[in-house]
């Protein structure tokens, strides 16, 4: 079952579906929660660590729609693929002596990291921009868990978390955006302004100020005293502004420099659908252009899901899971090129 989830091309991030999917790949809301009766994972003993796992395992059995996994039983390669699909954090994929677990549903739209920094990191995902429904879902799941277990909570500080910076509502909502238009028109400076609105931005891949593949994650900064609804309303309106600017930039490029733009996009498509060697970085850069082209109406023969699945092929863990075992970099590049050709060639 976990194997299906890992290998499935339709993760919430790559369905090419949902509201404003031309700019937004996926929305996520995460809640940090701890049980009142056990020390936080940082100070866990074998007994208290296993107790949290056992509690969640029992909870999953009761619910029927969630499957429980002890991450000690999952291979490093599969964990890497789980990270690439955002079901677990890089931290949670470590092979260490912590009592790490995962609860996840069939489609991957719900995943609970167990004994990460906090006892629970409850996450819900949806393709496209969908904060309202997502909040309903994660809130209901949170209520359900809380009907079984007592949470660590303080009237003044809110939900108690291992890191004092997460105190309060313990919520982090993120929107994953594809911003090639703002990149090509050199207007990413817009994102620097977001901290004024209580938001943080980070590139999904790569380093430094510019993200490889033009993928950016916009999230709320959270503080005690803010309630969830206000944060989500704020994030939604900020996201909608960025979507508007990104669409303007794309239209500007098409109108002002259409031939050059289409040349770059078609070249990217040509390379992706014909290359025999393809590094992760090159793939991410080319996919960005093809995705832009798709949403500008260039590739009528493709489906949006086909295009977004390319992101999975770009990543090393997923690729090796498909292949069945570890590969060196050169072998990955060859296999990656093959998979990319097979997906859109």
């Amino acid at each position, binding site marked *: 079952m976990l194997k299906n989830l890992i290998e499935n091309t339709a993760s919430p991030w790559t369905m090419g579906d949902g509201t404003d999917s031309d700019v937004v790949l996926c929305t996520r809301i995460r809640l940090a929660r701890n049980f009142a009766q056990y020390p936080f994972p940082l100070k866990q003993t074998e007994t208290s660590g296993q107790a949290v796992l056992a509690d969640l395992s029992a909870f999953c059995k009761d619910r029927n729609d969630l499957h429980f996994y002890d991450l000690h039983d999952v291979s490093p390669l599969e964990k890497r693929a789980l990270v690439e699909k955002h079901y677990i954090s890089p931290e949670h994929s470590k092979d260490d002596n912590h009592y790490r677990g995962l609860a996840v549903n069939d489609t991957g739209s719900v995943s609970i990291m167990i004994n990460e920094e906090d006892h629970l990191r409850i996450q819900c995902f949806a393709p496209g921009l969908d904060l309202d429904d997502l909040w309903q879902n994660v809130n209901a799941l949170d209520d359900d868990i809380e009907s079984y277990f007592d949470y660590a909570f303080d009237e003044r500080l809110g939900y108690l978390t291992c890191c004092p910076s997460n*105190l309060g509502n313990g919520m982090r909502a993120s929107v994953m955006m594809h911003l090639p238009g703002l990149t090509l028109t050199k207007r990413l400076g817009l994102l620097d302004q977001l901290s004024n609105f209580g938001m943080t931005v980070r590139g999904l891949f790569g380093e430094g*100020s510019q993200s490889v593949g033009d993928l950016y994650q916009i999230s709320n900064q959270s503080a005690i005293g803010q309630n969830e609804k206000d944060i989500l309303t704020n994030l939604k309106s900020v996201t909608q502004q960025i979507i508007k600017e990104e669409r303007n930039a794309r239209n500007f490029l098409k109108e002002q420099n259409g031939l050059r733009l289409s040349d770059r996009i078609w070249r990217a498509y040509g390379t992706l659908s014909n290359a025999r060697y393809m590094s992760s970085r090159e793939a991410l850069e080319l996919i960005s252009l093809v995705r832009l082209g798709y949403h500008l109406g260039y590739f009528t023969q493709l489906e949006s899901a086909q295009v977004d699945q390319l992101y999975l092929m770009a990543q090393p863990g997923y690729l090796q899971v498909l292949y069945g075992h570890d590969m060196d970099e050169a072998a990955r590049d060859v296999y990656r090129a093959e998979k990319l050709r097979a997906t859109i060639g």
Partner: protein
Amino acid sequence: MYCELCKKNPATIHYTKIVNGHKEERHLCEQCANSLKEPGGVFPTLGLMPDFSMADFIGGFFNPESQSQPFVQKNMSAHDACPVCGMTAGEFRRVGRVGCSNCYSYFADYMPGLIQRIHGNSRHTGKVPVRGEAKLAEKQKVVQLRQELQQAIAEENFERAAELRDSIRNLEQEGGTHA
């Protein structure tokens, strides 16, 4: 602006390095930046970018060399430990995170400025656990009944006082089994 190392390519990577309070600005082209291999992975190979570590940042406030010492109000020895989870003040300083929910009261005098600095002077206004809410209501009910009990005793209404005493006992026992 040209890259400060090769002085040939345009500088596309700009960052500020702060080491022991010493600030240094760097302007590099991608090639030179990659060849630098700064410790701490300023330019790690392509992969999922790790989250900025808030915990390290917080621990830094308690560093003896830090300029932000004034907001530590109560001096604790590095060996003072939370009785529930064993987290010591020294470890808290180092990792910037706490070990259990009790740490928030145990270290309360040690880090009031810290929480204020991150969160401002606010109280939690978001979601409240449903059971937490019920417990809160129970607590308030007990307080109210105790007041009535005092009143009844003062009025020498012992029949009423006995009733009230039983209600309080029941409520407190219920609370105990929920905990």
